[in-house]
């Protein structure tokens, strides 16, 4: 039985890895795959992964096992020496438990659906291969992040998801707008990832290795007790919350969410409606015991979740295109999920473990249900006008416009606030991007002046490349 479980666990991870290798490597060596070959590779890889995950679930249910760790050995090991007192391990370990298995099954299910949808939707598109390479990177990243048994492996998957997001948002790269949106998302992801990396290294530093079992206790998910002091939990948890907020587009990083809709519909559906946007919530669920340790952290999680939910529901009501409206609807739900995780943290900290466990299951079920509903809605988005016409025909009149009712209800100022998406992009541009560009450009000009002085050239100062006032900057 142990062999079968290991085999299935490895199949879950290797299926998307083989897909990526088989699609991406030939193109690097000048071999161009046909659409049909790409479709077959994608379908078979997703199917193998999906069946393996389902079989794993069946075995776990049949044997009553709630936690199946599969040790893949040390990827890197640096032994202890007289100068290096503690050995360095980069351990590869995957864990199948009540959190990872549903997430893996969800990932394969939705990736399979989107793969099939995209094969028709993007038929004969010039960037067909490019889309599926990014799709394969995303699929691998999601699976690695879901089943990771160590914080470093989770980071590995996390980064792959971030890269594929940026590439897919900029999919229609002959136009400026998708490209600048992709770059903006990438910038936010980089800072979120930086926070994640610092947290990972800090956790590695405190415990000597990055295994979740050592960080959040030996109990199976959703139980477990972290061996951290309140302040340690607060600092590490805050960094992880920052990372989760960046990835799940929570306030104050939600400005990128509508920009992400620049990508093709299949990628919008899978990333910002279904999977990627829930990865932050997944991270918070995984490190739940850390949130239990700090009341302040739990309150911060609730606040960020609640504010994001309220923001999402207000802003989403005035959006004029369906994909953006759906993205803000997603944000509302993700905000609620995050707030629930924060409440679970408070309950865990108070010692009400049954309530904490229940709330975590509730959050997980919410993620699964929401992801599937939103995927369906986003995939229907391109045919929305047709659906509306069908409804109009059925009603015999136009559907009443609810936007004006919202405007009357909240007043002009709030309406403007919602229309401008809470001015969040303006605030980031004015208080982060602009000062950065001004300082860097000034230093650049000073350097140029110094070089001109040394070389005896005329003064030739450069203008800054990134103009934060311009929309495409």
């Amino acid at each position, binding site marked *: 039985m142990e062999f079968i479980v290991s085999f299935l666990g490895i199949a879950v991870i290797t299926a998307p890895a083989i897909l990526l290798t088989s699609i991406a490597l030939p193109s690097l060596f000048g071999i161009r795959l046909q659409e049909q070959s790409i479709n077959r590779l994608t379908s078979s890889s997703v199917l193998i992964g999906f069946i393996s995950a389902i079989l794993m679930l069946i075995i776990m249910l049949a044997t009553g096992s709630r936690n199946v760790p599969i040790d893949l050995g040390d990827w890197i090991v640096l032994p202890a020496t007289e100068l290096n007192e503690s050995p360095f391990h980069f351990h590869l370990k995957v864990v199948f438990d009540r959190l990872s298995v549903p997430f893996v099954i969800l990932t394969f299910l939705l990736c399979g659906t989107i793969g099939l949808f995209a094969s028709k939707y993007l038929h004969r598109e010039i960037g067909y291969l490019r889309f599926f390479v990014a799709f394969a990177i995303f699929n691998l990243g999601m699976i690695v992040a879901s089943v990771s048994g160590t914080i470093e492996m989770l980071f590995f998957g996390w980064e792959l998801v971030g890269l594929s997001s940026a590439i897919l948002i900029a999919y229609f790269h002959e136009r400026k707008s998708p490209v600048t949106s992709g770059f903006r998302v990438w910038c936010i992801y980089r800072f979120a990832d930086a926070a994640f990396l610092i947290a990972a290294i800090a956790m590695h530093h405190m415990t000597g290795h990055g295994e979740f079992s050592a960080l959040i206790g030996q109990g199976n998910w959703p139980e477990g007790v972290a061996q951290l002091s309140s302040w340690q939990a607060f600092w590490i948890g805050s960094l992880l919350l920052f990372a989760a907020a960046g990835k799940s587009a929570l306030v104050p990083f939600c400005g990128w969410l509508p920009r992400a809709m620049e990508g093709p519909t299949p990628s919008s559906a899978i990333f910002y409606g279904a999977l990627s946007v829930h990865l932050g919530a997944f991270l918070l669920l995984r490190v739940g015991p850390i949130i239990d340790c700090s009341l302040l952290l739990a309150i911060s999680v609730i606040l960020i979740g609640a504010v994001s939910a309220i923001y999402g529901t207000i802003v989403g009501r005035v959006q004029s295109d369906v994909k953006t409206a759906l993205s803000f609807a997603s944000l509302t739900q993700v905000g609620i999920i995050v707030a629930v995780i924060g409440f679970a943290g408070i309950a865990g900290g108070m010692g009400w473990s049954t309530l904490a466990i229940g709330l975590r299951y509730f959050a997980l079920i919410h993620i699964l249900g929401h992801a599937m509903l939103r995927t369906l809605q986003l995939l229907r988005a391109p045919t929305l006008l047709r659906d509306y016409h069908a409804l109009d025909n059925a009603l015999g009149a136009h559907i009443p416009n609810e936007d004006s009712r919202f405007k009357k209800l909240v007043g002009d100022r709030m309406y403007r606030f919602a229309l401008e998406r809470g001015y969040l992009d303006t605030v980031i541009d004015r208080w982060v991007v602009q000062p950065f560009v001004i300082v*860097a450009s000034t230093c650049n000009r000073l350097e140029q002046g110094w070089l001109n002085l040394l070389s005896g050239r005329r003064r030739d100062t450069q203008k800054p490349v990134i103009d934060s006032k311009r929309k495409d900057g």
Partner: protein
Amino acid sequence: MHELHLPWLELAIVTPLIGAVVTLFAQSIDSKRQHAIGFSVLTLLFSLGAWEDFRLLMTFEAHDRWDLITRLIGPNIIVIDEFSAPLIPLTALIFLLNFLSLPNTKAERMLFSNTMLLQFTTLALLACRNEYGLVVLASVQTIFPLIELIYRRRAIGPYVFHMGLFVLLMISGVYLVFRDGAAEHANSLGIWLLIVAVLIRNGCAPLHCWLADLFENASFGTSLTFTTPLTGAYLALRLLIPISPAWALQTVMFASLATAVYAAALALVQSCPRRFFSYILLSHMSLAFVGLEVDTVIGLTGALCVWFSVGISLTGFGLTLRAVEARVGYLSLRKFHGLYRHVPLLATFFMLTGLSSIGFPGTIGFVGMELVTEGVVDVYPLVGAFVVVAAALNGMAILFGYFRIFTGTEHPATANMVAKTNEKLAVWISTVLIIAGGIWPQPGVYSRFHAASHLLGGETAEVNVDGH
């Protein structure tokens, strides 16, 4: 000291020298290029031979059999050790990739003999252990870019000012520190002079301006081959670290960390792609330097890994930029160019090498960056965050460059711009190294760990090559 089975080192060092002479007398550009590639392949093979022979000896250091340099100058001048063993083939590879991917439009202006002489001095420098030998070679090395600047009729002021200062300070520093033959009670003025010299060569702010100027005015190939072997870091390891007190290392580390963040930030506001590249390179050189100065085995191991990944990744990144520049001329990063459709392979390679340089998971740079951060966090927990910030800014800069050059519009070219066979070959070699080093890093990392342990004066535990 152990002896290699053949004089691999001397062969690897002398081959480019012979190549420089032969190339000088070659008639056509094609023949010059073929000679340069041929001699560079030979150099790479000899240096790989030296590395493999040294590995089989299972010792920390060794010198050539029938060592001619020992007879002519003295013992232990040209030595291979665990630290330098992979750096010599890496440098040979950088020069080979430079010649291999040389576009036709650039070949006409290339000073082949000059570049091969630069290769000769760089390899000799990396194999040299004698402090006076290092000073001579590091000084001579600075002449070849200068020759090219003069040949191209460019302003030499910034380069001469910085490199002149570097040579002057290095000579004075080495004289003051090593004049009595022993460095145990080194003169603190001498140490300071050496620190500043090494910081200039490594491009530490505010003494870094020569780097951007060199990339802007000299050829891309020469600038790359002068900087990517990180000879400044090599000088620091040989001359500075063994004699420096803790405060000196600390100072250098903080200065390098500030430079890493500063250069990454400046890369984001550049309009000239060469300057853009120079700042990314500067940031990575500084990050490697941070690891060197952190004075822990993990940090030093990380620095040596970053050294290797910078050598491979940023050389590939720079050569891609050169290939693009050779096709469409000067590219301003102020606007979009949309070249992806015409050069998809180069675009992909640009992205791959860029991601590898920032330590993206699955590439050769990942482990190095992780270890450097771990090493810094180990000693200065809060300061470690700046390493991550520098990496984040570099990541932004890489995609900024990618989007500006390859996307955002449709480039209206009618000429065929696809990569040539020789360019593809260079791309494939780099790709294999980047991905293989990313997927299976243990042998490389363990070898760097072993070297780091010896450099810091310790012994490693009894483990086999796989680290188990």
